[in-house]
């Protein structure tokens, strides 16, 4: 790499966003929509909003994130609503808290659509350039970005959303290449400069399975899987209408022969030979990993997913691998239906640099460099939705930082985004972090169906949700309240209608005078089934009906969770002064003192979630804080 000696002034912006993946796109859009002149740098314009791994958006936990992004005023939900190939709600057999929307995406169209939105966004400038350094003043505050070609872009805030490009290294068996995802160039200089800024840089690993030409697969041996006939959209603004796309995915299985091939060639896996240094995610194990760890399993599922309508490439979910190319082809062809499979892209593992997210605040701003924000895989997370969620927060906050206004911090009680950010900034990301509903303490309250009610107030306050959208949401909330009141006041009479309801739902005895409200709490009784007893009903808005039903049915549990949140907010409200001197608190254990001093939590709640800090330490800390206040 040759050093560029001659540098030049390339322009003045309010903010520069580095990287145009899912995090960068949301960050840039948010920042520009907040009126800031924003430059979005990408190493490759054809890789804007690229999906280098699975061709889907949403899923358990992730669907929640997309809804929350939408409620904050983000773009992801709207783009997937336009470009999906199949859409369905997962977990419909379970409670509303864990219903999750998921869509198969047309990758090329997703990219096109997002790129077009960005290109047409006022205040937003999209440019193909590689950032190599973040320029700061003597206080550490951001003043600009330097590019590979020597351009100096002056700005007051930077959002780093560099994905897996930083010192990217791709591994296919014995073959190692310096490369970003999908054969794109890796970025080398930026990560050294991050260390210079004081970040702890760590090495992470992820991987993606092979892509196959679908014309070489015998689909008659596979089981097709379709989406839902009727479905809600991701965006609260969208309605998918009637002519829905529903391209099938297919289910297939590995077998003993597949496993034999893999076992016989384990010595050639870089995972077991020690070539791979980075820590990979447990929820995304390679097929060889699965076969070693779950040796008694006779077969593993794999899902065959279309990459788009304009291509014959299909994705093999469940079959990621870092075995050599010849072995990959060999084991894939042992799978029923794949006897003649043509591999178009081999599975690979990729290692990349990320920062320790404990070095950033919940606003996603660096603890050391004012004006520097990070989002997405650089923070140790994995997944398009996780990236986009951080992107919108970082974008909003970059703009607020420039304005000198209060930034957006979402807590664990506000939403999945809050949980995601709180987890990484307090616990770090020793492996690539994925959101899961089980990480969310208050998930009955943090549903995908009420993300609008939860987060639009934030989106509105930060200027990304229009008054019109906001008022529409408020009207919905009011309609729900009114309908609940009405159901409380409406009681049942004896008669044929009641008898038919009892017979149909087996809901037990019902005394005349029972309110519809309390009747709806009974198992198997739905709002719909009460129609026969409810002559004055005139509600048709499905979204409102859904809220009414959920809020009444789960009322007791909702109350319980509200109490839990109340307790949570109390400790979360106990702030720790920024300059608090942990080292002089002799009552704190040494480990706790060091951890607290290193990561400087903002409040008691955060402090309690740092690993290595015990509840006893928190008690001591409480006393020390009280002492300091006096």
């Amino acid at each position: 790499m040759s050093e560029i000696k001659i540098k030049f002034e390339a322009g003045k912006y309010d903010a520069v966003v580095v990287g145009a993946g899912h995090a960068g796109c949301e960050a840039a859009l948010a920042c520009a929509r907040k009126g800031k002149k924003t430059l979005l740098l990408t190493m490759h314009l054809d890789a804007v909003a690229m999906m280098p791994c699975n061709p889907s958006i949403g899923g358990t936990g992730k669907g929640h994130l997309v809804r929350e992004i939408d409620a904050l005023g983000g773009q992801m939900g709207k783009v997937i609503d336009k470009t999906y190939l199949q859409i369905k709600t997962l977990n419909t057999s379970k409670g509303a808290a864990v219903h999750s929307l998921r869509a198969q995406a047309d990758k090329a169209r997703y990219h096109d659509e997002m790129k077009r939105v960005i290109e047409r966004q006022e205040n937003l400038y999209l440019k193909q350039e590689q950032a190599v350094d973040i320029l700061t003043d003597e206080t550490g505050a951001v003043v600009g970005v330097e590019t590979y070609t020597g351009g100096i872009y002056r700005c007051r805030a930077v959002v780093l959303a560099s994905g897996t490009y930083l010192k990217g290294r791709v591994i296919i068996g014995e073959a190692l290449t310096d490369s970003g995802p999908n054969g794109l160039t890796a970025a080398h200089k930026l990560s050294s400069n991050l260390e210079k800024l004081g970040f702890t840089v760590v090495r992470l690993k992820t991987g993606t399975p092979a892509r196959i030409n679908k014309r070489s697969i015998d689909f008659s041996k596979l089981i097709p899987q379709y989406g839902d006939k009727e479905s809600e959209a991701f965006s609260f603004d969208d309605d998918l209408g009637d002519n829905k796309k529903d391209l099938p995915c297919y289910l297939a299985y590995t077998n003993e022969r597949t496993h034999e091939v893999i076992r016989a060639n384990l010595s050639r896996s870089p995972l077991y030979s020690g070539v791979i240094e980075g820590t990979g995610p447990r929820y995304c194990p390679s097929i060889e990993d699965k076969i070693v760890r779950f040796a008694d399993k006779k077969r593993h599922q794999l899902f065959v997913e279309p990459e788009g309508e304009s291509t014959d490439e299909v994705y093999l979910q469940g079959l990621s691998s870092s075995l050599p190319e010849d072995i990959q082809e060999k084991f894939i062809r042992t799978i029923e239906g794949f006897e003649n499979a043509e591999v178009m892209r081999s599975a690979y593992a990729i290692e990349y640099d990320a920062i320790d997210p404990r070095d950033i605040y919940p606003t996603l701003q660096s603890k050391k460099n004012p004006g520097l924000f990070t989002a997405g895989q650089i923070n140790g997370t994995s997944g398009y939705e996780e990236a986009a969620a951080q992107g919108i927060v970082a974008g909003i906050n970059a703009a607020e930082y420039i304005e000198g206004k209060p930034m957006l911090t979402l807590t664990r009680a506000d939403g999945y985004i809050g949980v995601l950010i709180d987890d990484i900034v307090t616990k770090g990301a020793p492996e690539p972090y994925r959101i899961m509903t089980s990480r969310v303490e208050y998930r009955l309250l943090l549903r995908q169906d009420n993300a609008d009610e939860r987060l639009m107030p934030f989106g509105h306050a930060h200027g990304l949700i229009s008054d019109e959208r906001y008022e529409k949401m408020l009207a919905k909330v009011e309609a729900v309240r009114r309908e609940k009141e009405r159901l409380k006041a409406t009681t049942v009479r004896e008669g044929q209608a009641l008898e038919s309801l009892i017979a149909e739902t087996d809901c037990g005895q019902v005394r005349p005078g029972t309110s519809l409200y309390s009747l709806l709490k009974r198992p198997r009784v739905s709002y719909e089934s009460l129609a026969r007893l409810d002559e004055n009903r005139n509600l048709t808005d499905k979204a409102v009906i859904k809220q009414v039903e959920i809020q009444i049915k789960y009322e007791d549990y909702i109350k319980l969770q509200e109490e839990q949140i109340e307790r949570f907010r109390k400790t979360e409200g106990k702030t720790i002064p920024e300059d608090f001197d942990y080292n002089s608190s002799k009552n704190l254990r040494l480990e706790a003192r060091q951890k607290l001093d290193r990561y400087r939590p903002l409040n008691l709640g955060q402090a309690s979630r740092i690993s290595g800090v015990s509840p006893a330490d928190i008690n001591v800390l409480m006393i020390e804080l009280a002492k300091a206040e006096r």
Partner: protein
Amino acid sequence: MEFTDTIAAISTPVGMGGISIVRVSGDNAFEAMEGIFVRPGGKRFADAAANSLSYGHIVGDKGEIIDEVLVGKMVSPHTYTTQDTAEINCHGGLSAAKSILSLLLEKNVRSAQPGEFTKRAFLGGRIDLSQAEAVGDMISSQTEMFARIAAGQIAGALRERINGITDKILNLLSQLEVTIEYPEYDIPELTENQLLFALKDIGQDIEELGKTYKKGEIARNGLKTAIVGKPNVGKSMLLNRLLNEEKAIVTDIPGTTRDVVDELIVLSGIPVKLMDTAGIRQSSEVVEALGIQRSLAAMETAQLVLFVCEACNPPAEEDREILSKTEGKDRLILLNKCDRGVNGEAMAFFEKYDPILISAKTGEGIDKVEQAIVDFASQGSGETTQCALIVNERHKALIDSAAQSISRAVDALEGGLPGDLIEIDINECRNRLGLITGETADEDLINDIFSKFCLGK
């Protein structure tokens, strides 16, 4: 973690004094009193003047009178803790104070941790740290054995037992969670019956652990020791010997002790609650017969029985009867009045029970009795550090609420609510148990999921 929630505790030391005080402090202190404290003429406690004493009764849920009390009302900030505080002066002995405390615990009041009033006093700026620490030290050193057991419990057996239960909970949660996170993988979902079975199993474990609270009595309230025997074998005199003072009334008339007398002594740091009982015999006298009944009851509840017989006379029919009644109980056979000579028949009869020859009158052999009691209790406490015991009221309250969460989950499941909702209860249970061991276990669940199931792309 909270400064303002309302806490309560028995503030007077165990087993002493004619009055016990239950102290309630926090934002909700006066409100909590409203439901359980009835003043004459229906006056509200809320209306009582600051720094006043109010007379009235503590009543149970069904309106039954628990005790006649005086309640002091101290208004924030001029109180020990700087928060609203009520002090209930009730009758001495633990039972009234304990009943009052448990009533309070049902009123959105939690039991105070050791030293917590003092901690609040400190946080409220009333006292400085050194004072607070001194109070804390005093509290923690009240009985050595308690401190030892409490420390041992947290480090060892109790933690292990609770971890055993939380492991079961985790296992259940990860089975529930995995089908939520990965709905499309072919992992068998738990059936409602399996879930019910698992919940009931966990509930039973928790309940059993809760029951050990009774066994924790030794540490908390002393080793319950009943002195039994036929009339006039010198039981009361033995008690006096052990107490080193004349508390029980001693006469030569058989049947003088007509009630159970409780006394607390401390032997080598172990609190021992001695219960002198009426002599056991067939009696036609009503009052005495009642006393005998109580003796038998005391013997039932005792953890150790000191069975007193005469060394100088052959065993009587009543001795044989009491011997068979105490069968299966932990007991020491004490052959009293050895100063009057040792009867061969008595020796032969009791030999196999390892009797201790004593004279309550001269003091001979009393040291051996004391040693035997200590040995028994420490063997008991040796046992307590191995098998988990709930000794702490806070722990008991947490165990109870953990058990409630599980039974709520069972009800909800039977009422047809989905598994992911029931998880709220199961998690609540897990959090309660975690508060006992002081462990936060956020990452455990995720770890458990990935160690058990094979998932992902």
